[in-house]
């Protein structure tokens, strides 16, 4: 039987804010999205105050602050550094790890078959991460990813427990699934759960008992996999880092709404430039570039979501090619008459092959891909990594980040001027 663990950092962003602020150990903390738009993380004290995930900040600002709550703009320099430390520790503990998100990782515990060993490993893991980095984590151990998610979810509800749960014996699994509403299961959202409820499937246990054939026909092969995983049959394998990264996304919300293309283009170009830098940093080339533009879901004006992809005939990593693709994609998905609040650039279909295959039919795009100057790009990346800034003509000169970030904590671990102070 397989065995794996899900390590999940507790209220990660809020916990990061506490590492260098011992005075906030028991205070409510919320962290806001880029642009301070809405709440994206809450400490358990903030949750207890009834602050909901995703709530717009302006709606709760007054009452929250009046009750002594602490607020931070997101400080991704800090979160990224601490996350990297946590993942690095975990990587040193097992052979195979999948970093699933900034605050979650799946660990392969194949070599630990005895239940007691796995549990002790979980406790050890939790203590080390807590001691070395100062971040509290919860650990769910089970035979499949879906069950490990559930185990970690259950530890969240137990107050004062060890933070580690081994969900392996069938009667424990049954008991847990009977008490679990079906929408809490990984991959089953609210919409899906409504349709399941109509078929009298309310709990995780009901779903586990469902006929796989029926689920596949009525829903999808993805949900069928979930049913199998609930039964302890591993369908989702642990994917190492190399296989995992399949796209690069750079997106931001704007300080103020943008109506016309001429204003939008330089900002989207900025995202494209940043995305291209990341692409080269990964040593990748991409075959597809996409642009996304959104209006604000919180405004009363007409809503629009635009998306367009451009396919290259051969893999590119040169910023100039990506900018040309982005320009085309943006022209295609832009519609006048809307107030745009957010945009993004997505690079996908990676390929490391440097062999350029001639393309017969794509003459129009040849000019875009012909410009692949790795040396020039390396040079510009090196300059931009220092103080100098080399801009492309279509860019908006200035910071990529459109956020105001009035309430950001210091970059304690990445900036000499922001080091924590001891007396």
């Amino acid at each position, binding site marked *: 039987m397989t065995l794996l663990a899900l390590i999940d950092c507790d209220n990660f962003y809020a916990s990061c804010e506490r590492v*260098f*602020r*011992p*005075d*906030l*150990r028991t205070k409510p903390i919320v962290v806001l999205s880029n642009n301070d738009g809405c709440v994206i993380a809450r400490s358990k004290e903030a949750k207890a105050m009834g602050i909901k995930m995703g709530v717009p900040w302006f709606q709760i600002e007054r009452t929250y602050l009046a009750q002594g709550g602490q607020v931070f703009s997101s400080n991704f320099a800090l979160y990224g550094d601490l996350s990297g*430390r946590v993942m*690095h*520790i975990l990587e040193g503990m097992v052979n195979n790890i999948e970093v699933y998100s900034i605050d979650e990782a799946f660990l392969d515990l194949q070599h630990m078959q005895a239940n007691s060993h796995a549990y002790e490993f979980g406790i050890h893991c939790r203590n*080390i991460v807590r*001691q*070395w*980095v*100062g971040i509290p984590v919860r650990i769910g151990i089970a035979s499949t990813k879906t069950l490990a998610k559930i185990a970690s979810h259950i530890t969240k509800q137990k107050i004062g427990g060890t933070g580690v749960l081994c969900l392996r014996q069938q009667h424990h699994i049954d008991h847990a699934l009977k008490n679990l509403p079906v929408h809490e299961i990984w991959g089953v959202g609210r919409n899906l759960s409504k349709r399941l409820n109509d078929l009298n499937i309310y709990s995780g246990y009901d779903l586990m008992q469902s006929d796989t054939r029926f689920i596949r026909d009525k829903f999808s092969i993805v949900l069928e996999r979930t049913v199998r995983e609930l039964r302890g049959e591993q369908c989702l394998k642990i994917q190492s880092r190399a296989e995992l990264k399949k796209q690069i996304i750079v997106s931001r919300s704007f300080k103020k709404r943008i109506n016309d293309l001429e204003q939008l283009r330089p900002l989207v170009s900025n995202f494209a430039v940043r995305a291209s830098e990341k692409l080269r940093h990964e040593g990748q080339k991409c075959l597809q570039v996409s642009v996304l533009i959104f209006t604000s879901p919180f405004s009363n004006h007409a809503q629009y979501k635009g998306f367009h992809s451009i396919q290259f005939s051969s893999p590119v990593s040169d910023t100039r090619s990506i900018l040309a693709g982005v320009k085309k994609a943006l022209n295609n998905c832009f519609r006048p008459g809307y107030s745009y609040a957010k945009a993004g650039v997505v690079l996908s279909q990676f390929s490391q092959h440097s062999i350029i295959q001639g393309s017969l039919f794509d003459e129009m795009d040849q000019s875009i891909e012909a410009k692949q100057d790795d040396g020039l790009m390396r040079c510009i990346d090196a300059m931009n990594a220092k103080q100098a800034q080399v801009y492309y003509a279509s860019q908006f000169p200035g910071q990529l980040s459109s956020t105001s970030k009035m309430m950001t904590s210091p970059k*304690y*671990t990445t900036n000499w001027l922001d*080091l*924590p*102070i*001891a*007396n």
Partner: protein
Amino acid sequence: MTINYLGSISVDDLPATFTKFFLEPVSVGFPSPANDYLESPIDLNKYLIKNNVATFLIRVSGESMINANIGDQAILIVDRSLKPRHGSIVVASLDGEFVCKRLQLKPRLCLLPENPAYKPIYVQHGQDLDIMGTVTAAINKFE
């Protein structure tokens, strides 16, 4: 303070790893004969940091540890993975503030300054003390 003149230093006195970087010219035509012997430059990180994922830098404010060679504005290398012992220099959070002091475990728990002008901090019952990590080195900059 007394200063002893030890004599002047010539290039020949420098250790091999130093001279390599000062003396090797940029070659245009022929490959340098030193190429096969290249070693990576001396790395202060390696010298100062044993466990980098558990190590944090903290700046000192004030002179309470001056006799332990930790001056105002010194940068502390703090390793959270080392278990603090009696006599270790630590960074601790005391009532919500970071302090750098010498840890005394016996006869009673106390945070000792290294400067007679400062008083020892006897940790009272009910006070919130949390040892963040052990200070393994301090960097004082003079210029």
